[in-house]
C-alpha cells in the first residue's frame, strides 16, 4: 500500500487521540470511584442504580418513621405503666376502705390519697411528648381530659408508614385507655347481700345500680366515664364512709387495670414489630447499597491495570511516531 506523508501523520495523531481519550476516561473513573459518570456509560446500569437509590432513600424515610413511632409508643407505654401502678394503688385503697376497720381519721387519709391518685391519673392522661398531648387522638394541642374529667380529644389514630403500604399507629386515643366502657350489663352479688348492676350507657358512660337483695329496690345509683371519675367517686365514698359504693368500685378498678394492661400489651407488640421492621429495613438498605455499589462503583484494580496498559500503548506510539514523522528520504540525500 502506498502511504502518503499526511496519511502517516494523521494515523499517528488519530491513534494518539484515541488512547489519550481512553486514558482520560479511565482517569475520571479512578478520580470519582464511579463506573457510571453519566447515563450513557451504562444505560441498563443507570436504570438499576436509580431504582436502588430510590429504594435506599425511601428506606431511610421509613426508618425515620420507625424511630419516630418507637419513641412515641415507648413514651405512651411508660406513661401507661405509671397508670397501671396508680390503678393498682387505687384498688388497694378500695380494699382498705372496704375493710370496715378504719377509723374516721384513717379513712380521711385514704380518701385524700384516693384524690391524689385521681390527680395523678388526670396528669398521666394529659402526658405530653414534646409539646404534644399523646392521648388526645388527632387533637394533639389539647389536653386529653379537662379539669372536669371530660374527654377533649378524638378517636384519631395517627398512622405512619413504616414500609410500602404498611401503616402503624403511633398513638393510642385516651378514651380507649382511661375511659371505662362496657359491652354488656353485668351483675355482681356483694357479701352484704346487695346486688350491683353495671349497666352500659351512652358512649363510655357506665351506670352502677346498687340494689337490695330483692334485686328490684334501688338503694344507690351513680355513673362514671373514666378512671379519673372512678377515683373521684372513691375519694368521695371514703369521705362519706359509703361502704356500698366503695365495694361497688372494686370491679371497675379491676376492669380498668385489665384494660390498661391490654393496651400496654398492644403497645409492646407494636414496639416489637417496629424493632423487627427496623432490622428488616436496615438489611434491605444494606442489600440495596451493595447492589448499587456493584452497579455504580468502578473496579479500581481493573481500572488501574487498564490505565497501565493504555499508558504502555501511548509510550510505544510516541516512540514510533518519533521515528516515522521525523525522517524522510530528504534527510539522506546530501
Amino acid at each position, binding site marked *: *500500500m*502506498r*502511504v*502518503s*506523508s*499526511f*496519511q502517516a*501523520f*494523521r*494515523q499517528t495523531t*488519530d491513534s494518539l487521540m484515541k488512547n489519550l481519550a481512553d486514558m482520560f476516561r479511565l482517569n475520571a473513573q479512578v478520580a470519582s470511584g*464511579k463506573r*457510571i*459518570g*453519566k*447515563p*450513557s*456509560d451504562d*444505560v*441498563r446500569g*443507570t*436504570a438499576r*442504580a*436509580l*431504582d436502588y*437509590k*430510590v429504594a435506599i*432513600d*425511601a428506606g*431511610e*424515610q*421509613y426508618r*425515620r*418513621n420507625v424511630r*419516630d*413511632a418507637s419513641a412515641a409508643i415507648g413514651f405512651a407505654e411508660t406513661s401507661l405503666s405509671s397508670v397501671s401502678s396508680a390503678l393498682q394503688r387505687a384498688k388497694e385503697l378500695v380494699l382498705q376502705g372496704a375493710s370496715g376497720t378504719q377509723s374516721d381519721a384513717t379513712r380521711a387519709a385514704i380518701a385524700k390519697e384516693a384524690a391524689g391518685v385521681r390527680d395523678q391519673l388526670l396528669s398521666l392522661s394529659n402526658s405530653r411528648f414534646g*409539646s*404534644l398531648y399523646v392521648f*388526645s*387522638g*388527632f*387533637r*394533639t*394541642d389539647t389536653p386529653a381530659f379537662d379539669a372536669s374529667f371530660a374527654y377533649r380529644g*378524638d378517636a*384519631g389514630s*395517627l*398512622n*405512619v*408508614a413504616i414500609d*410500602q*403500604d404498611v*401503616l402503624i399507629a*403511633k*398513638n393510642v386515643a385516651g378514651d380507649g385507655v382511661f375511659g371505662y366502657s362496657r359491652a354488656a350489663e353485668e351483675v355482681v352479688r356483694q357479701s352484704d347481700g346487695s346486688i350491683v348492676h353495671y349497666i352500659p350507657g351512652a358512649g363510655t358512660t357506665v351506670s352502677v345500680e346498687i340494689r337490695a337483695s330483692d334485686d328490684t329496690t334501688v338503694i344507690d345509683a351513680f355513673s362514671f366515664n373514666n378512671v379519673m371519675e372512678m377515683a373521684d367517686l372513691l375519694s368521695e365514698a371514703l369521705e362519706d364512709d359509703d361502704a356500698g359504693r366503695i365495694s361497688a368500685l372494686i370491679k371497675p378498678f379491676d376492669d380498668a387495670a385489665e384494660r390498661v394492661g391490654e393496651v400496654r400489651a398492644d403497645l409492646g407488640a407494636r414496639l416489637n414489630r417496629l424493632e423487627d421492621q427496623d432490622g428488616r429495613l436496615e438489611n434491605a438498605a444494606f442489600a440495596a447499597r451493595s447492589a448499587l455499589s456493584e452497579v*455504580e462503583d468502578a473496579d479500581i484494580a481493573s481500572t488501574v491495570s487498564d490505565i497501565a496498559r493504555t499508558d504502555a500503548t501511548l509510550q510505544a506510539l510516541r516512540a514510533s511516531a518519533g521515528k516515522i514523522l521525523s525522517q*524522510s*528520504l*530528504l534527510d539522506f*540525500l546530501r
Partner: protein
Amino acid sequence: MSILGLMNIGKSAIFASQAALNVAGHNIANVNTPGYTRQEVILETATPIVPLAGGYIGIGVAVSAIERRYDRFVESQLLGQEKSFGKSTAMDQVFAQVEQVFNDFGGAGLSRNLQAFFDAWGSLSANPEDAAQRSVLLSRADALAGAVKTMDRSLAATVEGINDDIDAAVGRINGIAGDIALLNGRIVEAEAGGTASANDLRDARDKLAAELSGLAGVDTLEDARGSLAVYLGMRSLVDGESAVPLTAAPDASGNLQLSLSGQDLASGSVDGRLGGLLASRDTIESGLLSGLRRLAAVLTKETNLLHRAGYGLDGSTGNDFFAPLSLATTDSSAGGSVSSAAVTDLSALTLSEYAVSIGAGGAYTVTSSDTGATVASGTYASGAPIDFEGIRIVLAGTVAAGDSFTVSPLTGAAANMGVSVTDPRKVAAASAAGALPGDNANALRIAGLADAAVASLGSVTFSSYYGGLVTEAGSLARDASDLKAFDENLRAEIRNRRESASGVSIDEEAANIIAFQRAFEAGARMIRITDELLQTVLQL
C-alpha cells in the same frame, strides 16, 4: 535526422524535466493541504517519428498531461460517508448535551428531588403538627419545582441552540452552493475545448462538495462539460453556474423549517449535519421534553387534587399545593382566536393535548392527541364556550371554517411549576377540619403518591417514569456516540484510502526530484554535446 534535431531532443528533455520538477514542487508544497490531490506529469515520446538509418526514432519527450491521481469510486464513498458522519456528529453533540440535563450521577438530579419531596410528606405525616417539618416540605417542594424548571429551560435552550445551528448550517450551505456554482463556471471555461484538466479548481470543488455532503447530504452529478449539478432532497441546489437558495423560516412553535425553491423540505429528506439537527430536535421535543412536561403536569395535578381535599393547621381547605396548571394555546387561523382557556375541573383533566378545528357551518370538533378520539363536537355559536375533559375554551373574532387551534395543559407545565402554598400552616396534612392538628391522613395519602402507579404516566410510579426519561436520554446519547464512533472509523478508513491514492508522499517526490534533476542534467549535457558535435563539423 540532422544534428540540430539532437539539440531539440535535448531541449525537450530539459522542458519535460522542468515541468515534472514543477509538479513535484507543487505536490511537496501542498503536502498538508486538505483535499489536495497529488498531480502527476504524464510523459510521452514526442512525435513525429523520423526515419533513421535502419529504423525510425522519435524527436524527444513531451508532456501530454498533468493528471490528478484521483479515484472516482473512493471519492463517491467519501461523499456518502461525510453525510453519515455529519449526521451522527450532530446528533452526538446534541444528545451528549441533553444527557447532562438528565444526569443524576453528579449528586444532584430530579430523582433525588422527587424522593426528597415525598419523604418530606412522609416526615410530615409522622409529625403533622410540626412547623419545622412543614417548612422543610415547602423548601423541598420549591427545590423540586426549581429542578423541573431548570431542566425544562435547559432542554428549551438546547432546542433553541439547535435552531441556531440549523440557521448557521443553512447559511454555510448557501455559501458553498454559491462557490460551487462559481467554480463550475471557471472549470468549464478552463477545460473548454482542450484536454487540459483544471486540477486545482476541481480539488477545491471536490472539497466543497464533501463539506456540503457533510452538512446536508447532497447528491452530485458531473456533466460532460465538467459542470457539477448538486441535488438536495431530490431538488436542485446547484445547476450549472446558478445556485438555488435554501431558506429556513420559523413555524408556529418557533422551530425553523427548511424550504428550497418555495417548497418545504421534509426533515426526512435531509441528511448530514442538518438532517441530524432536525432529527434530534424532533426527538427531544416529542420524547424527553414532552416527557418532562408530562411528569410535571401529572405531579401538579395529583398533588393538587389530594391537597385541595385536605385541611391546613388553620382549617383552610381547597388550596392548591403547586401553582395550578395553565393551558397553552396556539392559533393557526385567519379569523378566530382563543380568547380564554381554563381548567374547569382538575379531576377530569386527562393531560392530553387537543386540536380544535372548525368545519363548514361552524361545526367544531375537538380531538385528543393521546387517544385520537373526538372528545367534543357540535355547532359553534358565537361567544359560547366549548367544554371538553375538564377544559373550557372561549373563542373570539370571526370564527370561520378552516380555523384550527391547539390547547395543551403540558406545554407550560414544567416551565410554570412552582409551589403556591407559602404559609406552612396551610399545608393540608389533615383530612378533616375537626381533627386538627394531629390528623395526618392527607399527608399520608400524598406521601403514598411516591409508590402509586399513576394512570396518566402509563401506570408507573413518578420515580420510574423519571427513570425512564433518564435511560431514554442515556440510550440516545449512547446510540449517537456509538454511531458517531462507527462513522468516524469508517470515514477515517475511507480517507486513508483516498490519501493512499491521492496524497503526497515526500519520499516519493524526493525520489522524483532526483530522477528529474538527473534527466534535466542529462538533457543539458545533450545540448552541450550537440554543440561540440557542431563545432567539430564546423572545423572540418
